């Protein structure tokens, strides 16, 4: 089954076959980054717009490297230089970017659903680099790939996602990807931050970490934001760390080969104790490395699946018989 989507908007819409296809492709892209010449000409002459309308260093850097390793040209659009601000029509601005003849728009926005709306409106590929609390599909794929690499499988694993699930786009993308590939997902966190609605989709909800940590094969800790204290969803970082922070003492009762993951950046001493974040079970840096390969695959697959422009039809005929 080939990849036919011009956009990558979330993992929820993908089938298990599509997820397996992408994860399989990521391996080939990972090899490129191990070479001394870390570049292939696959997207030579293509333009990728990195449109990050919410502060981001890691994801943007990862996409930038991915695009460069595929030889694409990059245009950076950042909040300060962008008219894409509150109240303006995002779709209108996206149409302006489209008119510059770009091939892909990598979009990060603090409102859920913006990439979905933009993708409906424009021809270039749209890759969701995180929208509000909705989805962060490339991070989800990174987590799937990293688990697959370390555990050799996803089906049948117990994956525990700890923290602010309500506001986490990573938790949602992880949940869809993991559950479609047969893992059992448990959400654990302070009750106001763990939406019970996910039980309806097959997740398990737990409020006591010690009940569910021992059976976990993988623990994904989510970043907790300061705003949650202001909104009185958690009383303090200290009490959060005591109940939901992963430290060596709590891990003493976990499986010895449990994987510790975090989408970054880590609040050390809150979500993860420093010795856990840097410890032997942590694969946080593998996640960062794999991020580039995942994003190369995302860019390559989505751009390759675009409708050919009308003018390039004759070239397509030649190409079809030459390989």
């Amino acid at each position: 089954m080939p990849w036919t989507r011009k956009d990558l908007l979330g993992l929820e819409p993908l089938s298990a076959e599509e997820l397996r296809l992408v994860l399989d492709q990521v391996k080939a892209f990972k090899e490129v980054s191990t070479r001394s010449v870390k570049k292939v000409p696959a997207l030579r002459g293509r333009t990728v717009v990195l449109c990050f309308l919410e502060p981001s260093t890691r994801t943007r850097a990862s996409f930038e490297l991915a695009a460069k390793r595929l030889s694409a040209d990059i245009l950076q659009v950042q909040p300060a230089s962008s008219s894409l601000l509150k109240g303006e029509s995002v779709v209108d601005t996206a149409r302006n970017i489209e008119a510059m003849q770009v091939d892909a728009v990598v979009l990060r926005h603090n409102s859920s659903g913006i990439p979905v709306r933009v993708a409906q409106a424009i021809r270039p590929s749209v890759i969701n680099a995180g929208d509000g609390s909705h989805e962060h599909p490339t991070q989800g794929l990174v987590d799937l790939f990293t688990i697959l690499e370390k555990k050799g499988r996803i089906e049948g694993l117990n994956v525990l996602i700890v923290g602010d699930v309500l506001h986490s786009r990573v938790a949602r993308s992880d949940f869809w990807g993991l559950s479609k590939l047969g893992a059992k997902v448990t959400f654990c966190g302070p009750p106001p931050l763990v939406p019970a609605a996910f039980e309806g989709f097959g997740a398990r909800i737990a409020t006591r970490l010690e009940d569910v940590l021992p059976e976990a094969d993988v623990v994904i800790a989510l970043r907790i934001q300061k705003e949650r204290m202001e909104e009185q969803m958690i009383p303090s970082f200290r009490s959060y760390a005591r109940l939901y922070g992963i430290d060596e003492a709590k891990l003493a009762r976990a499986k010895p080969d449990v994987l510790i993951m975090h989408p970054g950046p880590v609040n050390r001493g809150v979500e993860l104790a420093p010795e856990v974040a840097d410890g032997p079970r942590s694969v946080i840096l593998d996640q960062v490395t794999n991020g580039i390969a995942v994003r190369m695959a995302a860019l390559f697959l989505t751009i390759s699946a675009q409708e050919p422009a009308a003018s390039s039809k004759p070239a397509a005929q030649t190409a079809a018989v030459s390989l």
Partner: protein
Amino acid sequence: MDAAGIDRALTRIAHELLEQRGAGESVALVGIRSRGDLLAQRLARKIQELPEGAGRPILMGALDITLYRDDVGLAAPQPAAPVIHATEVPFDVTGRRVVIVDDVLFTGRTVRAAMDALTDLGRPQAIELAVLVDRGHRELPIKANHIGKNIPTARRDRVQVRLLETDGADEVMVEEGRDAVDA
């Protein structure tokens, strides 16, 4: 071309490769996925079966040239991304004579992509090309060093190489094309 024909062609190419190398010099074969890599494995076996090839060091690799193609996004009537396989060249190509192995030489675009892919892995002393079939109609200034068989074809014909490992039989078939492939 039947199984015996393919076998004879590979035997001859194996001879040629050995003749052009000094005694004890290694042979580096990099096959283009898919089928070129299988032919490279057969060539390696042939070399070792020959008296002058016995004990000869052979380096094997496989290239996936998808990321080097010049037709990304132009390829199919139903837009779909190509499937990429891993590139596995587990030796350093720098300073070596490397033989690219493929099944059919046609426009030359695949070989061009393979040369780009190979040179991204290092700086070979020389790159050679071995193909089972040369069917003509080059679009680039590319010529094979070792050819199993020249088969004259019309441009619109399709040349199918089938191998035991993947297709259940060894044969080369020329299917007469009708009009231009609908792309």
